[in-house]
């Protein structure tokens, strides 16, 4: 038999611990969750350097260019290999049969169509995509990547294909509904905690973890999480705007021709309304394809 009287102090201590952890959840910890290798982390660290693509000019010859490799694949039918993170709805996510859908997937497919080649997706982790050194495992990233000065060192960017605002979100249990509710200032007064990808932050809040109540991500991702029933609210005005573009690894083979072709295709997709239609389809009627700064 367990002697309850003897165990009483232990039980009391356990009870107190549970109570303490419950009450501390009422205070918002000065911790913000962000995805690894994201601009949101850069922003929290005071290191966000948004940028625009370098000038893109048509090369005189396509010999030895990645474009030739892409066109020669699949017995000359051509195949473009695109990296995607299928954990980022509504840009890219998995279906029951294992295929991918989303805004980025549609944009990538349209680019391949207009290049006249087939398409194949690779699914590396996000930080492997932003780190460069793709070792020719995939040709391009159509992954809503923000153009930043440090990334431009290792990746070539096309013109942006759309623009998203970055937002702060708070869990509903924290009771925070506006920035002035916070007992600290952003970004200097907080610590960043990083999970593999943005969506993991929403997942952690959803599952009832209490180590953070705040999350910075793109407005579209936060809207997607709220629509999926995640208990959180979007707070305040956008923190900053992001220019999202197609990227190609600079450490790979020469790719000036491929970059030029894709940039031209994106320009055409802006002009003929394809991107606008896709944006409205995936972002609940919102047109995110016009530059908010112009």
């Amino acid at each position, binding site marked *: 038999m367990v002697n309850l009287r003897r165990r009483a102090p232990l039980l009391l201590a356990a009870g107190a611990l549970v109570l303490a952890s419950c009450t501390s959840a009422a205070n918002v910890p000065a911790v913000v969750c962000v995805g690894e290798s994201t601009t949101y982390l850069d922003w929290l660290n005071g290191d966000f350097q948004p940028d625009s693509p370098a000038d893109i000019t048509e090369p005189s010859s396509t010999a030895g260019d990645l474009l030739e490799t892409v066109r020669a694949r699949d017995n000359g039918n051509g195949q473009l290999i695109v990296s995607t993170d299928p954990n980022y709805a509504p840009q890219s996510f998995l279906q029951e049969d294992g295929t991918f859908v989303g805004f980025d997937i549609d944009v990538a497919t349209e680019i391949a169509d207009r290049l006249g080649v087939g398409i194949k997706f690779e*699914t*590396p982790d996000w930080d*492997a995509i932003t780190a460069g*050194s793709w070792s020719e*495992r995939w040709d391009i990233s159509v992954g809503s990547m923000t153009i930043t000065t440090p990334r431009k060192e290792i990746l070539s960017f096309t013109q942006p294909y759309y623009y998203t605002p970055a937002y702060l979100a708070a869990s509903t249990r924290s009771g925070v509904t506006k920035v002035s509710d916070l007992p600290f200032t952003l970004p200097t007064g907080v610590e960043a905690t990083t999970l593999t*990808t943005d969506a993991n932050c929403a997942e952690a809040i959803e599952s009832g973890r209490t180590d953070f109540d705040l999350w910075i991500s793109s407005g579209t991702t936060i809207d997607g999480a709220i629509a*999926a029933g995640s208990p959180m609210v979007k707070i305040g005005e956008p923190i900053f705007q992001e220019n999202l573009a197609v990227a190609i690894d600079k450490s790979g083979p020469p790719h000036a021709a491929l970059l030029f072709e894709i940039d031209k295709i994106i320009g055409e997709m802006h002009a003929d309304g394809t991107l606008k239609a896709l944006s409205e389809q995936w972002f609940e009627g919102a047109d995110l394809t016009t530059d908010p700064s112009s």
Partner: protein
Amino acid sequence: MTSAVPTAPILAEIEAHQRRARRRFRAQSASVWVVLIGGLGIALWATGNINADFIGTWGPYIVGGAWITILLSVTSIIFATGLAILGAIGRLSENAFINGAASLYVSLVRGTPLLVQIFFVYYALPQFGVALPSIPAGIIALSFNYGAYMTEIFRAGIQAVPRGQREAAESLGMPERLVMRRIVLPQAFRIVIPAIGNDFVAMIKDSALVSTIAVQELLWRASKIGTRHFRTLETLLIAAVVYWLLTILFSYFQEKLERRMARGDR
């Protein structure tokens, strides 16, 4: 002999009693399983967090990852066995160079985490110009790792073949290579097969680590789908149950094999 009591019926009775006791014990132990699993299932269900529709929709896709898990494990155990035979022969070699190389291999692999080896093959090798797609990279890392552990198993197996077998073959004039191939290795194989089975079951579980290099196996699917739909409980449960069933299945075969292999020793 004055005793009128015949001993045979008593012995038979004792044996029958022991058999009954054993059977009762097995039945009790099995019912503990049933009760605990049932209780756990009901408890999970009672929390109201399990969404049956969600499992119905996504279950097939996640469970489909089991084929990739099996493919990875089977291919890797085959390569690992090859590596282990070479490694064991190297470890037993009297040539200092071969012996040194083999023991370095074992030490290096056993002294570093499997996850580091997986990352090394996938992320670091490309800097030497070797860029492998994720599935081959995963197979190489798993084979390399298990090959080292199994080297020691094979070494012990070869050493466990009675010396007389080798001496007899040598005295018949068999060349050393042939003695190894025809006399020692077949007998060593019989000794190590149960241990390989063990390692295979362990590898099924360790193969989950290659989800980190974009291999779309069981755990990769479970975590991606779980994160996307905020239903990690269900997806991880599915993955855990599938891993468990796979290991139960292969452990059963391994046990049968072990019993078969032990027959020759009697």
